[in-house]
């Protein structure tokens, strides 16, 4: 198994006072589905965004596919690397006025020059590939529908399709099911798992829900206050670990603390 992504002593500070990540170390293997869990404000979103440099880490090294992301200075090189990193979001972040098809094709923009991209010109191969991905996510009927007419679950599937047409090596998902009902959540998580196992795309997913993380991940990274406090198999996660991750956040403790035992037993 090869290492695709590695964090070495990564820290991120906002302004002078807010330390969002401090001295983060971990690595992710090719084809793994890794969940990142932690209370809100722990630094999960910051961590994901440091990978594709939507946010610049303050110090450390982030090795992706052999190259240090933080050492890339040219805009062009950064964009080329970003095409290899797909991202999906809690609020889908689609252009709601445009059709599903157009939104999915946006995933190809990273490969285009300024003019071609601005005009939105795509070749037939790209379109065929996009249609194929749209179909595989069960959105055949919606291809030409405007995204503001879709349900939340459908929108998130469009978000996944947009990331997949990039032909990425890794998929970053920032709380992809936080705005969805249980049924849609399950559909989305199943798709992510499937992408990981059948396409061999590495998936890094931020999750709020511990049970989902336990069910779907190959590995769990728990962070709290910007530090990694757990890094291991879901089955090895103990109550003690959970308390360390979620601290004394009463809401998280009440909601989650009883569950892991039974869920862990199921696995």
């Amino acid at each position, binding site marked *: 198994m090869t290492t695709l992504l590695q964090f070495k002593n990564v820290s991120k500070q906002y302004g002078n006072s807010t330390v969002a990540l401090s001295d983060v170390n971990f690595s992710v293997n090719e084809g793994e589905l890794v969940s990142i869990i932690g209370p809100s404000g722990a630094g999960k979103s910051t961590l994901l965004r440091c990978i594709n440099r939507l946010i610049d880490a303050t110090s450390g090294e982030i090795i992706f596919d052999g190259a240090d992301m933080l050492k890339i200075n040219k805009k062009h090189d950064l964009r080329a690397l970003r095409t290899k990193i797909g991202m999906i979001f809690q609020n889908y972040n689609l252009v709601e006025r445009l*059709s599903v*098809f157009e939104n999915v094709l946006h995933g190809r923009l990273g490969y285009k020059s300024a003019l071609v991209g601005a005009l939105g010109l795509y070749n037939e191969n790209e379109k065929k590939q996009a249609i*194929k991905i749209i179909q595989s996510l069960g959105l055949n009927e919606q291809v030409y529908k405007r995204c503001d007419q879709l349900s939340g679950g459908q929108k998130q599937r469009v978000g996944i399709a947009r990331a997949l047409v990039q032909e990425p090596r890794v998929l970053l998902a920032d709380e992809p099911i936080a705005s969805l009902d249980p049924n849609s959540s399950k559909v989305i998580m199943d798709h992510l798992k*499937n992408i990981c196992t059948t*396409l061999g795309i590495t998936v890094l997913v931020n999750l709020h829900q511990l049970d989902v993380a336990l*069910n779907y991940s190959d590995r769990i990274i728990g962070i709290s206050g910007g530090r990694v406090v757990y890094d291991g198999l879901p089955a090895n996660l103990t109550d003690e670990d959970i308390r360390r991750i979620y601290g004394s956040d009463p809401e998280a403790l009440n909601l989650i603390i009883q569950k892991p035992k039974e869920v862990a037993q199921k696995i």
Partner: protein
Amino acid sequence: MAMTKTAGPVLTNGGVPPFQEGRIKIRVLSKANIAIRLTMLILAVLTIVGFATFNYQGVHLLKGLMSTLANFKTIFFQPQFAHFTLLEAIYQLFITLSLGVLTTLIGAIIALFLGMLAAENLSNKTVSNSIKGFVAVIRAVPTVLWVLIFAVSAGLGSVAAVIGMSFHSISYLTKAYSESFEELNQGTIEALEGCGASWWQIVCQAVLPSSLTSLISWTFIRFEINFGVSVAMGAAAGAGGIGYDMFMDSAFYYNLHEMGVITYLILIVAMLLEFMSIKIKNKVRA
């Protein structure tokens, strides 16, 4: 939420896409998209027609632009007093501000009543619609015409200016106030009605207190607008103040240097007012 691993749909299914023949189209033209394109097209055509039919009176566009740039340079980089002193200019500035204050206050008082009548939750649909239509018509007459029309019987001066300028303030604030009132929860009003409160009691105890901050914010925004309007009315409709000095410098003395001073003074006040109204707006939102 119980979730277990299940096999999702296979991603790379070899299903034949229904879009095989020829080029695949990306967009479908919806009614909204057609409307947007048509609007842009019509605006572009009318713009071209405009440029083709303008009354140029032999003015050379490029020469005019060059000399305008030179004038801007004079105004912004060589401002200088000629016909009055800084103190006099500030005095005139206060006259302009005063016109704005009077107009805003009169507008606010009248708009408060009209706004209640125009708010659908405090009034009925017929009254509300007729008030809204009435203020829309008032707004269709440019302020300078209101002032000049009143000047015929009242004479040019502050009275005609304030009355004329108040019309748009009334119209603007009536719309803004009524929308603020309409934001009030219908349940609150019904609850008070259920307690047997009279209309005036509801207005004074529930409606006004809960929308007060938003009323203040709108009123100040209108004051900011009214400052600009009083400058303009000073220049165009004999309302006095700094606008009149500007007009004299432009039309009679041809003194760009002094216009520069006035421009700076007006700019400073306008930016100060804008800054304050943004502060108030943020405070209200928070």
